[in-house]
């Protein structure tokens, strides 16, 4: 085992706020966010890069923050679930969509799911159901069976695009 390495200073912009901290090189970004920054909305579910509960947005990309070191994020711009709501504090279209369409139950996957969907809609503002399912396949949910998550994202897309949300016929 290597001996303890020197701590490193890192700074980044998180949810629009400049932050810094002293970390070991091995400190995972998710722990920096949760422990140092006290932003506990980003969760840890599997630790093997499968579940996506730790998803955050880094420089315009969805990233599983359990598989990145905090030192690697030095100088970057990060959005976590705590930075997703509208500027006036109201729920964003996605957050509202998840509530309206019952797209969550225990809430544990929700921050990662919403953060991922946020990026998906930036890249593809009007996705088909298939594109949504493929686009959130890096996020596991144990409660909902995804059907209402898909509807939640469709709801949000419609709201953002100013179109009418079509309830999928069952």
């Amino acid at each position, binding site marked *: 085992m290597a001996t303890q390495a*020197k701590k490193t200073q890192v700074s980044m912009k998180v949810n629009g706020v400049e932050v810094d901290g002293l970390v070991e090189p*091995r400190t995972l970004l998710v722990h920096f966010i949760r422990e140092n920054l006290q932003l506990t909305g980003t969760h840890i579910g599997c630790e093997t890069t499968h579940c996506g509960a730790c998803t955050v947005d880094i420089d315009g990309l*969805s990233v599983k923050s359990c598989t990145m070191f905090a030192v*690697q994020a030095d100088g970057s711009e990060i959005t976590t679930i705590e930075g997703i709501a509208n500027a006036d504090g109201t729920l964003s279209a996605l957050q509202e969509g998840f509530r309206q369409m019952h797209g969550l139950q225990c809430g544990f996957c929700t921050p990662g799911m919403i953060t991922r969907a946020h990026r998906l809609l930036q890249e593809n503002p009007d996705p088909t159901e298939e594109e949504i399912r493929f686009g959130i396949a*890096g996020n596991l949910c144990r409660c909902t069976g995804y059907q209402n998550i898909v509807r939640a994202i469709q709801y949000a897309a419609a709201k953002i695009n100013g179109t009418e949300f079509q309830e999928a016929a069952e």
Partner: protein
Amino acid sequence: MIPGHFTYHRPASMADAIKLLSDLGEEARPLAGGHSLIPMMKLRLATPEHLIDLHAVEGLKGIRQEGDNIVIGAMTTQHELLASDVIASSLPILRETALLIADPQVRYRGTIGGNVANGDPGNDMPALMMTLGATYRLEGPDGVREEAAGDFYQGAYFTSLEPGEILTAVSVPAQPPGHGYAYEKLKRKIGDYATAAAAVVLTMSGGKVATCSIGLTNLSETPLLAEDAARAVIGTVLDDASLKRAAEAAITIMSPAGDGRGPVEYRKHVGGIMVERALKRAAARAA
């Protein structure tokens, strides 16, 4: 699941990266996307004392045409491959394959260099690179050399990379216009490695297969080039009998492990089917 201690290096140039890697010796590992290495470190199956992060190294990203070759910088991510018009038009099989790798988040971070260089038999790009006749640019303390993808893989996680060397680019010959291609991958779910996968690139002439190359993923300790299988279809109209012969020829070189994806017999069987299906789909696409 916490990694052990290490010292973090973030060189800005290739020369610095190579110097660090050679000076620090075996205890140093280059870090690309990190989606293979970091999970291994969290399990302490990998405990490097030094990590050399390649993200700040200049010139390691990007896709460009160099003569008859498409050259892809090692730090180009799967996501960037998917977004590239050059790839979409000249090497569509790369796009098809990248879409079958892991999940969106992993594709944002995962790089082509990491995928081909770490020697994981489960990775999809190595067999594809062999199929396409790609070469790897390896830079080390003694300079630069080019190695054919077909000569690179020596065993599971064991490649011809010399100490101090870093894979910096992948060079893929542009495929002829009208070529057919397919990457058939059977997997249990999104995010899983292939139970079996086959890459096919071919050209057709007068309804018959003119040229053909077939690669196999996760069916041995290394990616495989199924040369006998390819020969079995060249000159044929891809009738059932020649498809069958190709599958059989491919199966003879497979030696997968039995695991949660299925016993050896199954993985070889579906390996043969992936070959047949990839051939058929590639032929249908060929002009």
